[in-house]
């Protein structure tokens, strides 16, 4: 093995992005808990933690760009760093989705509780599983697991459509709950976006390991090979 220092730095980059991933995952968990518990304190924690996520995003990007400039990586190392830069942006956006969710939750806390026809915790569990699997695929360099994440995205899209239909109907049948239903609709949409970011991360893992671009349905056979 030559270029030992460079490969140690790639490991360091991986550790940093995983630390960033931990913060983004925690933000979503807290946001969903804030929803179920109607807890303003948890909302505040998500808002406070966002600054740390943003700072981590900049640090990961800077480190990755330094490696590109100083080490001129090739092949799988080049793809790894490019994947990290893109995953980094997706994780920061996951953090943003958590912030969007708690802003809606803070709104809902001020309104009367309503029995809404949507299972936000179930959607959240599905989106969280996708993020977890995408990150596990990244940690283990497992394109097969990443491919499962791509498939799972269809399920959360379906849940989001069902939530839209049910909450739209609710707004018409129970106008007093329209504001709460609108907030829940946004939260469902935010969770669907979290799943989209997990899909992007999975695509980046496949790009890193296989050198195949499977975005927008391209190279499905490669994704599955």
């Amino acid at each position, binding site marked *: *093995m*030559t270029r030992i220092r460079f490969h140690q730095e790639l490991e360091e980059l991986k550790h940093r992005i995983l630390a960033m991933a931990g913060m983004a995952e925690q933000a979503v968990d807290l946001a969903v808990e804030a929803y179920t518990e109607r807890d303003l304190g948890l909302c505040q924690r998500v808002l406070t933690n966002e600054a740390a996520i943003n700072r981590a995003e900049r640090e990961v990007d800077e480190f990755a760009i330094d490696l590109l400039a100083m080490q001129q990586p*090739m092949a799988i190392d080049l793809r790894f760093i490019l994947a990290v830069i893109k995953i980094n942006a997706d994780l920061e956006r996951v953090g943003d989705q958590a912030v969007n969710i708690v802003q809606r939750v803070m709104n809902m806390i001020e309104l009367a509780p309503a029995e809404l026809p949507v299972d936000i915790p179930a959607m959240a569990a599905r989106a969280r599983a996708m993020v977890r699997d995408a990150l596990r695929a990244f940690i283990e360099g497992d394109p097969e697991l990443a491919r499962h994440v791509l498939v799972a995205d269809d399920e959360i899209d379906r849940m989001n459509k069902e939530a839209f239909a049910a909450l739209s109907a609710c707004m018409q049948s129970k106008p007093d709950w329209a504001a709460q239903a609108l907030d829940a609709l946004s939260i469902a949409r935010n969770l669907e976006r979290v799943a989209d970011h997990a899909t992007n991360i999975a695509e980046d893992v496949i790009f890193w390991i296989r050198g195949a671009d499977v975005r927008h349905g391209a190279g499905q056979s490669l994704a599955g090979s």
Partner: protein
Amino acid sequence: MSTAVEVRNLKAWFGPTEALHGIDMSIASTHATAVIGPSGCGKSTFIRCLNRMHETNPEARAEGEVKIGGMDIYGVPAVDVRRRVGMVFQKANPFPTMSIYDNVAAGLKLNGMRDRRVLDEVVEHSLQQAALWEEVKDVLKKKSGASLSGGQQQRLCIARSLAVDPEVLLMDEPASALDPISTAKIEDLIFELKQKLTIVIVTHNMQQASRVAEFTGFFLMGSLVEFDRTEKIFTNPSDKRTEDYITGRFG
């Protein structure tokens, strides 16, 4: 895309040691092809077989087929081959006592050209092609080749090769002894030259290979492990050995 150099089952020896183990390669016309690999992998031996320089070593021999524009180079006199296949080496080697003009004209004069007007035209055109004309046009006959800087000397050697109008230019680490600015000039020159001729460049600098060449071959222990478009080699090579080499996992 037409083929400028067709190599089939090329083997080369130094004494009893087989240095190339049957290379097959089709080198695209009017493109640059880079040859990379660790020291001792046979890459320099390979390009020296393309203009029969390899056999100038008394203990060396080569077997196989190398066709340039359909001509089997091992079936014609070596001097005819070298007229069609120029070569530039790692260390610039201008004729030290000759003027800049005579350095460039040397090949033509050796071929019997005596017409002063033609020589003047070829010298100017070759120096322009080598991006050296503007720097030396006022001292062509006053200064010797050896008085130029390292980068200028290398471009002078390129001009000397171009003067005999070759179809193929072989470059064996042409910029490895040059500073970054001189290196950039050589790389820009490669871009210009490959509009009209075929370039095969051996380099240890993989960034250079990726910058100048459309195709890259990776040699290892006398074999051609992988030969493909440069972007494929440097972003997603097919062979694990190529990937391990270019990512610095061995070498």
